[in-house]
């Protein structure tokens, strides 16, 4: 039969030599490797005291952005929900009335906005689809929790804090 690769090696069935049957030299060799690692830099870190920097392309928990004046940028255009392959995003839109101009950037805004984190696959397509720079995937991971219902993130959970209110 023609071989597919040239990597095939016949199994060596020769009886072991006396040195091999002793096992001691091999055990000592192994111990040296173990001891050697004590003096090397550990590969792990003590999370959560220490944290690794996120890669710049990391896609974590979503945030909803505000503009410089603290107004919500999202206009509920539905493109994030349309692009979402996991169908995790739902929203309901409302019209901005007089007196709400300081809250919402555009004439139309998302009255309800929800991301089901149980469905989300963190692909980042919502961020790519957003025409208003309103949704971003941040450098945090979704919090672990005991109940399923705590993974339904509504608008208040996702919005970044208003920069004007904290001052």
């Amino acid at each position, binding site marked *: 039969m023609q071989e597919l690769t040239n990597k095939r090696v016949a199994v060596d069935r020769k009886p072991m030599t006396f040195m091999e049957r002793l096992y001691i030299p091999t055990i000592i060799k192994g111990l040296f490797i173990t001891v050697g690692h004590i003096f090397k830099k550990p590969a792990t870190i003590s999370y959560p005291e220490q944290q690794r920097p996120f890669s710049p392309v990391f896609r974590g928990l979503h945030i909803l952005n505000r503009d410089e004046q603290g107004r919500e940028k999202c*206009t*509920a*255009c*539905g*493109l994030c*929900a*349309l692009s979402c392959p996991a169908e995790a995003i*739902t*929203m*309901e*839109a*409302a*019209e901005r*009335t007089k007196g*709400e101009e300081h809250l919402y950037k*555009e*004439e*139309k805004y998302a*009255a*309800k906005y*929800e991301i*089901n984190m149980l469905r989300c696959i963190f692909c980042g397509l919502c961020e790519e689809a957003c*025409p*208003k720079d309103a949704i971003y995937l941040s450098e945090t991971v979704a919090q672990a929790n005991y109940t*399923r*219902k705590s993974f*339904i993130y*509504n608008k208040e959970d996702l919005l970044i804090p208003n920069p004007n209110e904290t001052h």
Partner: protein
Amino acid sequence: MSEQIKVTIDNITVAVAPGTTILQAARQIGGEVTPPAMCYYSKLEGSGGKCRTCLVEVSKGSEKDPRPMPKLVASCRTPVSDGMEVKNITSPKVLDARAGIVEMLLINHPLDCPVCDQAGECHLQDLSYEHGASSTRYEFDRRTFEKEDIGPYIQLHMNRCILCYRCVYTADQLTGKREHGVLDRGDHAAISTCIGKALDNDFIGNVIDVCPVGALTDKTFRFKNRVWFTKPVDAHRDCPTCSGKTRLWMRGDEVYRVTARKDKWGEVEEWICNTCRFDKKQASDWTIEGPSKIDRHSVIAQGHYEGVLKPQNFLPEVIGRNPKLLMNIHDVSGVNKNDIELSKLNGPAHAADFEQ
């Protein structure tokens, strides 16, 4: 007049009746050969010739006079002659001109598709996607207009208007009395009423359907949902004033919007009256025929409503009981609450509508 004359469009020959326009002849062939049209509407007399998106090159005038036409012609207003040869997508001149026209149309058109209710079924959106550039060279502020209220049914966004005059012809030819028109000239030309009148003649709702952009939209549907999230179904009812054949845009059992049925050219098949369009927002008012046929290139087809087979649930049979539901999303979610029926509101929802 029964004699057929031959016209060749992009190397495809078609026999048409004398007096047919190039655009109509191209529509008989169909497909990519058909020039786009923003202002021409086959069901409105006198429409066309304004937007210049349907420009084509006539490389051979006719059998008798084979000279080419010196300039690009508007295919919606130019009748064919025997042996005429027309170039549409095979002519680089036409494609270049069309890209220029799209750029001109977009100069004053606001980039508010995320807010606009027409997005997803907007002809200008499709046109600029196919023919336009992705950026603008225009450096000045766009022309803007004061907001005008034209009644409880129709929302006017003059900023988005491309002055195609379709709505003017519709009001002239369908309704008893036209209340709106294009006022002022040049850069100030605007669709408006004289003065501050409400558009409430019967059949005036059809201006929403003929508008190629989002300048005239349905106020009863305003901001309720995006068109591609609603399910288009064909339905009819016994209407004393119109044919009653409509398209419902539904979500679950809620009727969000009623429009006329549109053909593959985006034109209304049969005009519908205001009662059908604005007042019959109950599923029980209608006899539903089935999902509408939507071109698969349209974003509205993303829901795949046609020919859907509901998968059979075998689980209860296999395990001998109904599966335990770990979480009912409707108990947790604040969206699509049963006690807030957006389709029942007369206008757009406001913050107060969600606080109950």
